[in-house]
């Protein structure tokens, strides 16, 4: 709860810094604020309190996901200043990121459909603006428009689903809904089924799961690379946390309605994401498809529905976010110096910049799920959780998807060791810091996964 207040508070501070001209102090204050938010998150651990007439419930699940989002946002703030060189709009962008983070925290701790809706919208509306923050670029405009259109379309589905569930159960509170569902005390089961399926479609849109993923590659490619890094880490974490909370806490007694459908969505997402990524020559677009595929693995945790699922999902989200932010940092540096995002711009990287090449190697191995990196144990725990629920076909499809994934992640690694492209990479300390932190985390979690798995 205090986390939410601190984050919204520094967001408002960011808005004022534009008026009162203390923009120089903005970045340090944002870091202090994020650190304070992290401290309040850690202090609330194991308290399990609900606020505002049970509208919000801060339990360990929500605290863990909030902490992950705050940490990734801190890493993001280290790489971002080089991007927004236009001083007039810098504080606006920072403020929007902070509000998006506030929405993300709300999405991981909601206990009422109203809060779910508000969290999703606070996050999404900020992201629509940020996706279009490169105003002169037509690609950025197109990304913002597509994101806006698909986002508000999905919101429409979500709201219609919520309204139908309200009609069937008479409440927005997810505890009350869960009780009425398990008692079978319903006004209309048809409305309930339609409502659950519509909310599932809307959440699948938000996590970019197939067949509702078609907006994601365009938006990820068109948006400025820094914003894409934020979208594929923090926004995805928030959406997956909300999806998990909604379906596991609320609709557990109605598994016959959604379980098979979600399993098919998960399998389709893994296959579509990995297979389409193979055909991409643009690394940014390839990472977009890879993030779609990773959404599929995260959905596997929701379908497993057992006690191992929350910690498996948390581990996966951390491993994915860390390696994803590292790979976007690398992409940012490479594309800053070569001017494009294509795979050719990685040629010769191994020879002229070994440090960068090693970091690329670690993050790509982690995304592919190869030991000794975090990605391996992330997939391992997810598969174990799924096997406990006897879902062998899904696990086989997921393993097949990972094998396809190895191919395109290794293409980047192989490209680094080819000749060509002698241009020097602009290599500032900020990027180095983020890559070292992310690299150490990816290796540490791969060597000692027990740090995280005991938490939930």
């Amino acid at each position, binding site marked *: 709860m205090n986390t939410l207040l601190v984050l919204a508070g520094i967001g408002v501070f960011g808005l004022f810094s534009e008026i009162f001209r203390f923009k120089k102090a903005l970045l340090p204050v944002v870091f202090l604020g994020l650190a304070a938010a992290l401290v309040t998150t850690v202090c609330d651990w194991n308290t399990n309190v609900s606020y505002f007439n049970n509208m919000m419930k801060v339990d360990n699940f929500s605290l863990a996901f909030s902490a992950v989002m705050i940490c990734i946002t801190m890493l993001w703030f280290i790489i971002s200043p080089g991007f927004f060189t236009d001083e007039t709009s810098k504080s606006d962008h920072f403020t929007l990121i902070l509000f998006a983070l506030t929405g993300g925290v709300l999405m991981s701790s909601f206990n009422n*459909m*109203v809060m779910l*809706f*508000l969290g999703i*919208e606070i996050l999404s*509306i900020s992201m*629509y*603006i940020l996706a*279009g923050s490169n*105003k*002169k670029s*037509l*690609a950025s*405009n*197109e*990304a*913002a*428009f*597509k994101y*806006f*259109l698909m986002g*508000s*379309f999905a*919101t*429409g589905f979500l*709201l*219609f689903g*919520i*309204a*139908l569930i*309200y*009609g069937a159960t*008479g*409440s*927005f509170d997810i505890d009350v809904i869960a009780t009425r569902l398990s008692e079978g005390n319903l006004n209309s089961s048809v*409305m309930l089924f339609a409502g659950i399926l519509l909310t599932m479609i809307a959440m699948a849109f938000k996590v970019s799961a197939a067949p509702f993923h078609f907006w994601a*590659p*365009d938006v990820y*490619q*068109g948006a400025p690379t820094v914003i894409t890094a934020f979208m594929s880490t923090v926004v995805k974490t928030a959406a997956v946390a909300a999806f998990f909370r909604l379906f596991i806490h609320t609709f557990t007694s109605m598994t016959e309605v959604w379980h098979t459908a979600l399993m098919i969505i998960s399998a389709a997402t893994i296959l579509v994401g990995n297979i389409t990524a193979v055909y991409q020559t*643009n690394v940014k*677009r390839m990472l977009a498809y890879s993030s779609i595929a990773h959404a599929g693995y995260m959905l596997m945790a929701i379908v497993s529905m057992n006690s191992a699922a929350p910690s498996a999902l948390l581990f996966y989200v951390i491993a994915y976010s860390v390696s994803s932010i590292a790979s976007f940092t690398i992409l940012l540096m490479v594309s800053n110096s070569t001017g494009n995002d294509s795979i050719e711009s990685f040629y010769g990287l191994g020879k002229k910049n070994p440090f960068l090449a090693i970091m690329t190697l670690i993050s790509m191995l982690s995304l592919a799920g190869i030991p000794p990196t975090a990605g391996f144990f992330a997939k391992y725990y997810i598969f174990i959780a799924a096997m406990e629920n006897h879902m062998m076909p899904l696990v086989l499809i997921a393993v097949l998807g990972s094998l396809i994934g190895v191919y395109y992640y290794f293409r980047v690694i192989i490209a680094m060791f080819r000749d060509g492209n002698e241009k020097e990479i602009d290599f500032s300390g900020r990027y180095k810091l983020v890559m070292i932190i992310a690299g150490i985390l990816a290796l540490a979690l791969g060597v000692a996964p027990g740090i995280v798995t005991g938490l939930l």
Partner: protein
Amino acid sequence: MGSIFQTIPLNNYVILSTLLFCIGVLGVLFRRNAIIIFMCVELMLNAVNLLLVAFSTYFGDAAGQVFVFFIMAVAAAEVAVGLAILTMIFRNTGSVDINFLNKLKH
């Protein structure tokens, strides 16, 4: 509170708002003018509002009507952002036809 539902049963409200919602969905899928697409999204949201108000009256529970206020406020913010994005596109391309938006690789 139940009196209105004796003349017009609850099912009629559900059917009406489902129809409105479907019209909105079809509009988003098939229209090519961005402004009309926005209007169709609004139609979807307003179908939801109608449904919520009908349920709220039926249950005699104010929560549904409060939710409608939240939806209205958020929809206003959303459209403000959407129209700003559209203005930005119009400045760069001189059109609001979404067929112009195909610069990103498919």
